[in-house]
Structure formats: C-alpha cells, structure tokens
C-alpha cells in the first residue's frame, strides 16, 4: 500500500490489517506516555483546501502520537488565495521534505492527481475530496462498528470483519463522500448496507450500487438495522432546492426523539447511532439522539486518531522502495 486514496480499491486483507493495527494504536491512547517513537524524524503535511475540524485535528494528533513532525497548511491565508496551483504547492512540499501528505480538497480526484504525478513522491492520504471519497472516515466508522459488532457477538474484534451486520446510511447521500467510502468498505467487510434518503438526494448512479435503497426512514428502522449512520445535510454544496424546507426534511428523514423511542419499541437494544460530524442538531439528528447512550459520535472521534495512526504507520514504515531523485 503506497497511498490511501479510496476504499473502493482497498482489499479486505488490507482493510482488516489497518483495523487490527488501529486496535493496538488505540491502546496507546490509554497509557501514561501517549506516544510511540515509530515515525521519529518524519514530516507529515496536512494540506487542507477545505475547512475541517475533526479530520485535521485527528490527523495532527495521530502524527504527533507517532512522534512525527506536523506541518499544517490551510488554503485560506496561503499563496493558494494568490492563485498558486496544486502542482506548485505540491512541489514546494517536496522541496521542504514532506514524508507524507494528507490532503483534503474540494475537487474530487485531487489526491489521486497528486499520487499519480511526479510532483511529489511522498505517500498521499485522501482526507476527503469533493463528493468522491473519505477513506479514513470510513475506516474509523468500520472500526467503531467492528468493536460494537464483536461485543454484541461476544467475540474479540481482531482479525474479524462485519459479516452479517446491517447498516443504514441516512441523509444527504448525493453530496456525501463519507457515504460512498463507507459503502465500499462496509461491503468489502461483509456488511449489508441500506441507503435511506429523499430521491433528490440520491445520485443517479445509486441504482447500480451494491446496496438497498429505501425512501422511508421509519420503514428502514423497522427492518432492524444494527447501526444507523446519519449524514450531515451539506447546505454549502446545495445550489438547488433538494427538499421543500428544513422542517419537512427533519420530520421525514431526521433522526428525532420519536425515532429514538421507536428503536426501543422495535426491540433494537443494540442499535448504534453514528454521525461523522459536524452535526446539524435539530435537522438530521436531534440532541436527544446525538447525546443518547446509543450514540457513538465521540467514540468515532477517538477511534479516528487510532485509525489514522495505523494508516500513517503503514504508509511510512517498511520498504517504500522510493527512488531517490
């Protein structure tokens, strides 16, 4: 594995390896000295062309826990606003001596471009590109789900997948790179995925995706999912009217208190609620649901550090067989 660009081409073997290493990385977070010397003397650049709280902080914490040096780059306030191209930015990083580049970009495919060209020969990690993919988010969701699934089945999580688990992904599928990355990864790990959204927020190609599509959230919850992943309504990417108004969206596709109570009525004591953040409380998820004991939102954040440590460790250790030029 030289880069991590998408979960579509991630093999089951590699995915499980990342999750297994993340289990050991998670243990480091509970120790007195929360640091490992594995990446001492290496430089990780966080290249963020789009706003982010969780992902950037998480990558920064992950790199620092592995003793790497971190350079944070935000497009706002940099020469990008003077018109500098991605190529020139990448070549600058190469000249500075970056050993790995974590990139978030508003354009789908920007990380793949960086990985495919000779602008920079460091490993590239996709931290979210347009509406394409967000692989580390999918990996941390899978990690959270796998721990839950192993606990529910009374087994250990090491080496296992998600065979037989039913996951519902609900909300703004159209604009969601998280939904896409999760779909590919969860399928690879053996879970069954149901996408729940208004027809206007489903991409045209969704018919060919390896998942079930349901337009009715209550119906999807009655089917007894083991986990419900709520997605953020991405207002900043919406340049048309995808639903009449926020109240109607919230009533039909939001995870509100009534639906939280409905989970108990359906006898779904084990069903987990996930949200990749940032949450629009009151729109796609109510505060009651977000703060309930079913909510794994904060587990997702702490697991994110462990998963990103595992990814950086795998990409930056071992023979990379890079030619010095």
């Amino acid at each position, binding site marked *: 594995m030289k880069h991590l660009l998408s979960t579509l081409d991630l093999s089951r073997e590699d995915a499980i*390896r990342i999750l*297994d*290493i993340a*289990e*050991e990385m998670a*243990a480091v977070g509970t*120790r*007195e*000295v929360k*640091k*490992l*010397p*594995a990446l001492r003397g290496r430089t990780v650049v966080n290249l963020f062309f789009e706003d982010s709280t969780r992902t950037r902080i998480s990558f920064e914490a992950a790199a620092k826990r*592995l003793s790497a040096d971190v350079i944070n780059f935000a497009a706002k306030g940099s020469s990008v606003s003077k018109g500098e191209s991605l190529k020139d930015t990448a070549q600058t990083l190469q000249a500075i001596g970056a050993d790995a580049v974590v990139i978030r970009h508003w354009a789908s495919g920007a990380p793949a471009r960086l990985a495919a060209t000779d602008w920079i020969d460091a490993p590239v990690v996709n931290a979210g590109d347009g509406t394409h993919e967000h692989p580390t988010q999918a990996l941390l969701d899978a990690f959270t789900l796998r721990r839950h699934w192993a606990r529910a089945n009374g087994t250990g999580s090491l080496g296992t997948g998600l065979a037989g688990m039913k996951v519902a992904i609900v909300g703004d599928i159209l604009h969601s790179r998280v939904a896409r990355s999760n779909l590919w990864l969860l399928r690879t790990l053996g879970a069954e995925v149901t996408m729940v959204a208004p027809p206007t927020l489903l991409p045209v190609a969704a018919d060919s995706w390896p998942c079930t599509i349901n337009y009715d959230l209550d119906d999807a919850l009655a089917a007894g999912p083991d986990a419900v992943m709520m997605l953020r309504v991405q207002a900043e990417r919406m340049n048309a009217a995808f639903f009449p108004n926020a109240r109607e969206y919230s009533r039909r596709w939001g995870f509100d208190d009534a639906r939280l109570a409905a989970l108990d009525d359906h006898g779904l004591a084990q069903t987990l609620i996930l949200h990749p953040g940032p949450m629009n409380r009151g729109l796609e998820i109510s505060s009651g649901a977000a703060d309930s004991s079913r909510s794994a939102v904060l587990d997702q954040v702490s697991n994110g550090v462990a998963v990103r440590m595992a990814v950086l*460790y*795998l990409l930056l*250790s*071992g*023979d990379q067989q890079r030619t010095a030029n």
Partner: protein
Amino acid sequence: MDTGDATQRTSESQPKSARTVLSGGDIDRALTRIAHEIIEANKGVQDLVLLGIPRRGFPLAQRIAQRIAAAEPGTDPAAIVGQLDVTMYRDDLRHSTARTPSPTNLPAGGIDGKVVVLVDDVLYSGRTIRAALDAIADLGRPRIVRLAVLVDRGHRELPIRADHVGKNLPTATSEKVRVRLGEVDTANGLPLNEVAIEGQA
C-alpha cells in the same frame, strides 16, 4: 524475536541442512532451571513480573511462570505474566517491511517498582532487547529489569547480555536458529517443541 524474520519464514527458502540442538525435553529442563534461577536471584517471587516478547517469548514466559508457581506455592502464574510488543520501538522500521504489532498486556499490578524479567526465545544482535527497554520506559518504571532467553547465539551488536540463558549456541551468522514451541508451532498436526540450527551451506 531477534531472528524474527528467520523464525517466521517457514515455507519458502528451504535450507540445505538442519540439525536439532534442543529437544522438547531439553527445552523443559532449561526452562525449569531458568525458573529456579529467577527465584534465587530475586530471593523469592516478591514483585516479580515476566514479560514475554511476541511471538515465542510469550509462551516461554508462561511456561516459566508455571514452573515458578510449582516451586513457590501460592503464586498465580497468570498474575505475573504479561506480553510486551516492541514493534513500534524497533530501529529498522524504515528498512524492513511494515510489521503488524501484537497486543501489549501488562499484569494487573503494572510494572512500577516491580522486578521485570524480559523473556525471549533467541538473543542475537540485542536490538530487540534495546527496543524492549525503550518500550518498558514508556509503560512505567520497574525497580529492576532482567533478561531471560532460551538460546543465546552470540553476534551481539549492542552492549546487552542475558541474566538467564537456557543454552549458549555458537553459530555462524549465515545460520538460522529456529525455535519451535507447541503453543504456536505444529508439525503434521502435532505440537512441535525443538530448537534447530539451519545452515545455508
């Protein structure tokens, strides 16, 4: 673990010659002696913690703990054994293939102020033990750290020596020392316990 690559590579590169230098019975006797040496050096089992280095150091630590418990009744072997993974502390992370770390499990009492005996199968360059000492420093501050190995094959690259040695085996660097323990190794479906030297010539 110093022979990590050599011990874990099983199918490919069949060697030209292999000779068994310790049988299962020899391993048992060496471990019994090491167990008694540990008790003697520690003047009892007070504060004793055995940390095995994956993979084969851990089953060795368990076997030694069982023998210590047999010699000193009232000792719970499970309560004094732990596993210490050193992958993240190795000095060759950049050069060899990326290794998957194993879990680190410490006994419930931790290692602060304890007498820690590191247990590994083969002592070779000493680099694994250097990594283990770094790993221990991040987990706590033991009163004393000692080292017990089943086989010392020489060729040290660092100033490290073992306190308790099962067998000193003079070897050539071209040879491979393979330790096989019934807990992790099998031959024809049966557990295999032996130490063998495999020559390249």
